[in-house]
């Protein structure tokens, strides 16, 4: 991904979100939601800073036709992204093999995160 927006002040290394979080996608009509959960609660803030609703929207401009809203569950170290008009019409209309967008969780987990070099 070439959409990284962070401006680190300490040396960083780039990892896929999948290394530090897990996720699940769900569908309702033409709306997809992907919940993202930090494996280590200590990474929640970092993920929250870098994985903004704007970044998700910008990463998949043709796929996500509508707005992206992010909800936060800090005590569970989780974020929920709700993407409107993001399922190519929805389960009964889409011509995509994955008409539910079940694999959208791995679209998000495939985005990159800058980790501080000094992180454990």
């Amino acid at each position: 991904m070439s959409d990284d927006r962070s401006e680190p002040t300490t040396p960083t290394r780039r990892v896929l979100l999948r290394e530090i979080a897990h996720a699940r996608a769900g569908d309702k009509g033409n709306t997809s939601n992907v919940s993202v959960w930090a494996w280590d609660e200590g990474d929640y803030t970092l993920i929250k800073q870098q994985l903004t609703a704007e970044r998700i929207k910008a990463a998949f401009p043709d796929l996500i036709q509508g707005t992206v809203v992010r909800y936060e569950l800090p005590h569970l170290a989780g974020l929920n992204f709700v993407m409107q008009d993001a399922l190519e019409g929805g389960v009964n209309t889409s011509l995509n093999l994955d008409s539910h967008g079940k694999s959208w969780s791995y679209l998000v987990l495939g985005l990159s995160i800058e980790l501080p070099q000094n992180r454990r």
Partner: protein
Amino acid sequence: MLRIGCGAGFSSDRLEPAVDLAERGRLDFLVFECVGERTLAFGHRDRKLDPSKGYNPQLAARMRAVLGPARANGTRIVTNMGVANVPAAGEVVIAVARELGLEGLKVACVEGDEVTHLMTPATPLFDNHDRPIAAVGRPLAGANAYLGVDAILPALASGADVVITGRVADPSLFLAPIVHRFGWHQDDWARLGQGTLVGHLMECGMQITGGYFADPGDGRKDVPCLADCGFPIAEVAGDGTATITKLAEAGGCVTSRTVKEQLLYEVHDPAAYLTPDVTADFSAVRMAETGRDRVRVEGAGGRPRPEQLKVTVGFDGGFLGEAGISYAGPGAAGRARLAAEILAERLTRKHLPANTLRIDLIGLNSLYQTAGLNAELSEDVRVRVALRSMQRDVCEWMLWEVESLLCCGPAGGGGYRGQITPSVVTHSTLIDRAAVTPSVRLLVA
């Protein structure tokens, strides 16, 4: 303490783990959740073709397998397998009960969810930018309101061994037995919110016991014995707090991770999860691993239920044609791309309506083409063409075009397959509660 098991999380879910729960789950209730937007629309289509159909095709098989042990163990069954034809489904359950010699078995049919007759060409569809039904331009297949616990409770009060419904909100299938057992008031929003949390966590079956979770790699997402994953059990206390678990001998796992992922599955605002029963608030849910495969959940809240009911409106979607041809070995991606270009050129000469044709390269971009991602290393690529049309012969023509590449396409193409399946389209609207009148009919075997 109330023990509720989930015996199906969707229409085609596995059977044997449900039998395991009926036999060894020591359950008060076994719930089968089998209706989605898609299955409901197909139910209407099936009923139109044959008035004795339109319920879940696995209903008889499921009942034949679980009715005996469930009755022996005092486990009552709640299911939405009536789909678009609850009366016919009720008769099927009675027939199976008689076949098994279960004389006196009582089946309660919950009806009143169908509101097709209340739909008009002007009815606005909120998931289609409030455009009216008429603008969809397709024949209406059927419309069903999401019923809630108030529709199911009289069926439970009747003492029925099996409660069979059509469209009800998924969590309500679980919340109803909880409300029935503990006598909660139907405006006790906090408890209804907590009970809805339990229903929401349980409604997708194995998605909380390790299904839809495994991701081999560093071991963090390993799931033991996924081939024989068990369905979940909820142990619910009178205040609605619950422990999610499974049979010890069943495969799968219940951890705070599997519970977290399911907590927000198909949820938008965690603080406002709308059902016919309550506006549930999952934003302060707490969870704790209290033992092996045991996760305690609490802390959900609730506010008054929505004034209106959601309605799924199904339309005839015509036909979906799908066809494919594969290329492998050196240069496979290039040959597959050439095949795709040829098909795109020839198929678009027909002036098909917009967004009715799609060509994917399986192995390169079968799922993420629209997301703009392409894998580049595959030497095993399948061209897949999908075409939606109200006319079956247009789909047949597409299949012919793909098959013709066997002789006149790029080198080494093989493995042609094509199929045409009937299709449905669904949208959503809202309806006043007063317009919907649920009812219960009791059948005895």
